[in-house]
């Protein structure tokens, strides 16, 4: 099945770079469930802009380092 979103992310790598932050800890910091963090990491869910900013802030990285969107049109 095709991925439901074209947004990709580096959350997993950035979690480890941010002191091995667990999915549960990140979820607590941004007020989401752990399952939603897993879904975002696996590209099954695109968070709202507000949550995206909260995730980037929790990981100590700029938004575009956390989330990417392909340049070319589909």
């Amino acid at each position: 099945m095709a991925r439901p979103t074209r947004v990709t992310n580096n959350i997993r790598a950035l979690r480890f770079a941010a002191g091995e932050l667990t999915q549960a800890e990140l979820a607590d910091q941004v007020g989401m469930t752990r399952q939603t963090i897993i879904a975002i990491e696996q590209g099954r869910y695109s968070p709202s802009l507000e949550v995206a900013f909260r995730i980037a802030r929790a990981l100590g990285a700029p938004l575009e380092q956390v989330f990417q969107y392909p340049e070319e049109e589909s």
Partner: protein
Amino acid sequence: MPFEEKMSWVSMVVTVVVAGLYFATVLGQVGEVPAADIAYQRSMLIAIGASIVLMIIGAIALAIGTAVSAEVTGEGSVDDIDRKDERDVSIGRRGDVVAFYVTSAGALGALALAMLEYEYFWIANALYLTFVVAALVSDGVKIRAYRWGM
């Protein structure tokens, strides 16, 4: 598995079992007894009541099971039981919208049966079937969104 997805599974199982028993009991009489003489009211009220009660029991059992599992295995968190984030709300809303369309179509069907002067038995059962199908489709849409994304 997210708590809300587990709830959708509980709802689906309860709906299939209760509605299955109801229709097996009531529709089994069609053909043997004229539709107007089938005493479906009591069975339907029991089915609706049983669905509500079983859903409540299922939610309580699920919450206890999730809490025990979090304590014993360390998987998941007790906080997940009452935490609902924007993804849960969004998926819930998608399921509700689909349920609305199914219910609307079913209501039009029941309206048509009333206009064609079918027995109350068929109109009531068409409406009950509408609720059952709406619940199943809504749960299916939610489970699909949780599993494969939206």
